[in-house]
C-alpha cells in the first residue's frame, strides 16, 4: 500500500470512528454516559494509582491495590453509615412530625394569602399542592426504580469494571489510539494529547476534590444543625455544587425544605440558609482558589447553556457532566489551536 492509499485509509478510519461515536451517542446514550463517567473517574484517580506505582509495584498490582483500598473504605463507611441511612429512610417514609409540618404549611399559606393575595394567591391551597406533589414524586420514584433499576444496576457494576481497566491499561489505550494517527500528524497528536491530559486531569481532579470538600462540609454543617437526612442532603449538595450558579441553590433547597416541612422549624430553615451561604463563601474564597485549575475559565453564559443542553440530552447526570464536558471541549479546542499554530500542515 503506498503513502497516498495509506493516508486515505487513515482518513476513513478517523471518519468511521467519529461516525461510530456519534451513532453511539444517539442510539445508546446510556452506554456513552457510562463511558464518560468511567473516563472522568479514571482521570481523577490516575495520580493515586501512579503514586502506588512509584513504590515499585507494577501498574496492574497498583490498580488492584487501589481498588482493594476503595472497596475497604466503602465497606467500612457502609457498615458505619448503613444504620444511620436506614434510620433516615424510615423516618422519611413515616413522615415524622406530620402535625408540626401541617402547622408550618398552614402558617405559610396564611402569610402568602395575606401578603401576596393581589398576585392571585388568594385561594391558594398549599397543603393540597404539597400533597399532590408528594404523590407525584413518590409515583415517579417507584416508576424510576421499576424501569431504570436493572439498567442502573448493570451500569453500577460495569462502571467500576471500566474504571479498573481504564486505570490499568489507560496508557496502552492512549498509545493504541495514537498509533492510528497518520505519520504527518503523529507528533502533533501526541503533543496535543499530552497537554490535554495534564490540563484535563488537573481540572477534573480539582472539581472532584471541590465537590467532595463541599459535600463533607455540608454534611457536617447539617449534622451540627440537627437537620434530618443530613447523610443524603450533604453529599447531594456536594454533587450539586459541581453545577455553577444553580448548584449551590439546588444543594441548599432540600435542607431548607426538610427544615420547613419535615421539622416544621422556620428558624432552622434560616440557620440552614446562613450555613450554606457561609459554606459557599468558604468555597469561593478559600477552597476554589487553591484547588480549581485557573486554565479552564468558562463564561457564565456558556456554563448556563451547557447545563441546559446537558439536561436536555442526558437529564440530571447530563447537568452534572455539562461543566466538566464543556471544560474538556474548551481545553481540546484551546490546545488544538495553540499546537496547530506551531506545525506547518499546509506543506
Amino acid at each position, binding site marked *: 500500500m503506498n*503513502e497516498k492509499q*495509506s493516508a486515505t485509509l487513515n482518513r476513513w*478510519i478517523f471518519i468511521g470512528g467519529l461516525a461510530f461515536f456519534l451513532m453511539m451517542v444517539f442510539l445508546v446514550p446510556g452506554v456513552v454516559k457510562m463511558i464518560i463517567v468511567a473516563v472522568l473517574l479514571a482521570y481523577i484517580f490516575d495520580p493515586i494509582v501512579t503514586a502506588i506505582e512509584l513504590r515499585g509495584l507494577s501498574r496492574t498490582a497498583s490498580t488492584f491495590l487501589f481498588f482493594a483500598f476503595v472497596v475497604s473504605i466503602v465497606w467500612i463507611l457502609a457498615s458505619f453509615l448503613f444504620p444511620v441511612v436506614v434510620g433516615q429512610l424510615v423516618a422519611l417514609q413515616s413522615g415524622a412530625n406530620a402535625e408540626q409540618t401541617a402547622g408550618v404549611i398552614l402558617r405559610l399559606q396564611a402569610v402568602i394569602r395575606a401578603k401576596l393575595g393581589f398576585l392571585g394567591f388568594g385561594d391558594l391551597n398549599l397543603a393540597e399542592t404539597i400533597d399532590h406533589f408528594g404523590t407525584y414524586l413518590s409515583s415517579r420514584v417507584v416508576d424510576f426504580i421499576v424501569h431504570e433499576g436493572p439498567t442502573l444496576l448493570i451500569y453500577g457494576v460495569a462502571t467500576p469494571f471500566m474504571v479498573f481497566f481504564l486505570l490499568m*491499561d489507560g496508557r496502552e489505550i492512549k*498509545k*493504541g489510539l495514537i498509533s492510528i494517527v497518520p*505519520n504527518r500528524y*503523529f507528533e502533533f497528536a*501526541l*503533543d496535543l494529547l499530552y497537554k490535554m491530559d495534564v490540563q484535563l486531569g488537573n481540572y477534573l481532579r480539582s472539581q472532584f476534590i471541590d465537590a467532595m470538600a463541599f459535600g463533607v462540609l455540608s454534611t457536617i454543617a447539617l449534622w451540627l444543625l440537627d437537620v434530618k437526612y443530613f447523610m443524603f442532603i450533604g453529599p447531594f449538595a456536594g454533587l450539586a455544587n459541581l453545577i455553577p450558579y444553580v448548584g449551590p441553590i439546588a444543594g441548599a433547597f432540600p435542607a431548607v425544605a426538610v427544615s420547613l416541612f419535615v421539622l416544621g422549624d422556620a428558624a432552622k430553615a434560616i440557620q440552614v440558609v446562613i450555613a450554606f451561604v457561609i459554606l459557599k463563601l468558604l468555597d469561593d474564597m478559600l477552597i476554589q482558589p487553591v484547588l480549581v485549575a485557573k486554565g479552564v475559565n468558562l463564561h457564565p453564559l456558556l456554563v448556563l447553556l451547557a447545563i441546559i443542553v446537558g439536561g436536555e440530552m442526558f437529564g440530571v447526570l447530563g447537568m452534572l457532566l455539562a461543566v466538566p464536558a464543556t471544560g474538556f471541549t474548551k481545553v481540546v479546542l484551546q490546545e488544538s489551536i495553540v499546537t496547530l499554530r506551531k506545525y506547518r500542515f499546509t506543506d
Partner: protein
Amino acid sequence: MNIDLKEFFTFGKNEGRQPLFRDTLKSIPIFAELGRRELAAVERILHKREYQAGEVIFRQDEPGLGMYIIESGRVSIIADGAPGQVVELGDGEFFGELPLLDGGSRSATAMAKTSCRIYGFFQPDLFSLIARNPRLGVKIVMSLAAIIGMRLRAANERVEGLLHSAREKRGAEKTARSKGAR
C-alpha cells in the same frame, strides 16, 4: 502503511517485545546502562512508526517532541542552507534527541530514504516515566546529558580548532604581507 491495526486493537501491548529490538536499544548510548527490566520499561513507552521511502519524519523548525531510533531502513537528515544531505543514518542509529531535553524546534528535516521501521521516544512519555520510576528516568536523563555534553565538548574543540587555524592563517598572511613590504 504507517498504522498497525494489530497494535491498535491490542492497545500496543504486543509492541516492543522482540528481544532483537532490545539488543538494538541496548546498543544506543542513552540506554546502554539500563538493565533488562529497565529496557523493557523503555520499550513499553516507545511508539512504533513505519515510513515509506521519501516520507518526511519531521520538518526543520517545527516543534520537536523527542528522538527516533531506526530499527530498519535508512534516513536522510537535511538542513536548510546545507547542500545535499547532512548525514544518512541506518539500522540501530538514532536522531532528533535534543528536543527530548529542551522540547525545542527541529534543527533539520528527517526523511525516510528507504522504507523504515522507526521507534519514537518522546518527552511526554519520558516525563511520565520519570514520575513513575524516577531512578530509571534519572539514568536516561543523565545519559542524555552526557551525550549532549560530549557533543558540546566536541563542538567546542571544533570551534577552537577553527579559531586556531584562522589565527594561524592570519599570522601567516601577516608574515607574508610584512615580507612583501620589505
